[in-house]
């Protein structure tokens, strides 16, 4: 029995190692859980990129399932994500709306001309106020919205094949997005 007692501190230490290892590896501390899940997309009144006289509001985001993608021309990861967004649009017919975050509209227009445009339309968030209402703290970030305009999922970071496969696609399937006849 005394022999066993000798090993208690070691046992306690090993237990601590396991607990801390799991705790630190389970989540990336840089990724904040979204405070907006299952809440409606926040209200806004901002110009459209293609036509600066046109004002867009939250009602423009309702009526169909949408991926809202926060991006900017100064963001290198957004460039890397771009090909995947084009693929999702072309292959699966996913509607994508962009928020041009803290960027110059002219730069954004030129960028889309040069690299391709997966977006149904773009919202110009010049000073980042819509971003703050969304809890955005960097680019790229993306939100999956249902047809009622509620935020179902938030991705901090790029939308890539893994995120599509593990996070977005299953949720779309739950929403019966893939009706028969659509290519999967």
């Amino acid at each position, binding site marked *: 029995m005394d022999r066993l007692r000798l090993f208690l501190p070691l046992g306690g230490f090993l237990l601590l190692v396991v607990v801390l290892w799991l705790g630190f590896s389970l989540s990336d501390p840089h990724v904040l859980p979204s*405070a907006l899940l299952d809440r409606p997309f926040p209200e806004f009144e901002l110009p459209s990129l293609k036509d600066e006289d046109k004002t867009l509001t939250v009602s423009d985001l309702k009526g169909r399932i949408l991926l809202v993608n926060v991006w900017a021309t100064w963001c290198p990861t957004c460039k890397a994500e771009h090909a995947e967004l084009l693929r999702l649009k072309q292959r699966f017919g996913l509607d994508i709306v962009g928020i041009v975050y*803290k960027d110059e509209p002219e730069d954004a227009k030129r960028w889309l001309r040069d690299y391709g445009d997966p977006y149904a339309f773009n919202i110009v968030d010049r000073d*980042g106020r819509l971003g*703050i209402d969304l809890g955005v703290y*960097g680019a790229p970030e993306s939100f999956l919205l249902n047809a009622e305009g509620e935020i179902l999922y938030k991705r901090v970071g790029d939308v890539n094949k893994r995120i599509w496969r593990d996070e977005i696609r299953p949720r779309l399937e739950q929403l019966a997005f893939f009706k028969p006849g659509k290519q999967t």
Partner: protein
Amino acid sequence: MIGSRLNWFSACAAIVLLSVSGAAQSVIDAFEFDSLEQEARYQSLVAIFRCPKCLNTNLAGSDGAIAGDLRREIHRMVQEGKNDAYITEFMQTRYGDFVLYNPPFKVGTWMLWLGPLMVLLLGFAFLRRFLSAENTVMSDAERSELEKLLAQDEHTRTGR
């Protein structure tokens, strides 16, 4: 020799103490305020919210873009006369509990608050057991065994 060792020690001590001096850093913004009281409120508010992009810096001390944007928002709200509760709720509904240095006490965070206390109490319990009479005071049987061993040891050393 002693002099140089003392110098080396002083140097190390100085480096350690200076590196933990905990001086507060803040980024300089050119904000205007209607009163000193408003400015004081602003300064305290930007010190109590964590910058969402950083792991352990408040809004006052971070020169990242989002921290600057949030400082601007807080300045606007302070100027509009919003109270601390409103501003805190603003930050919390957008960025979650992470943005507060003191997370609210609720089901999800009870471990965070009570954990250290529990570990401390556990530690005390162990200490009590470890330092109890039966662990530290020698029993009679142990004492006579000790005396026997000492006598043996004396015998082999001195041959007597």
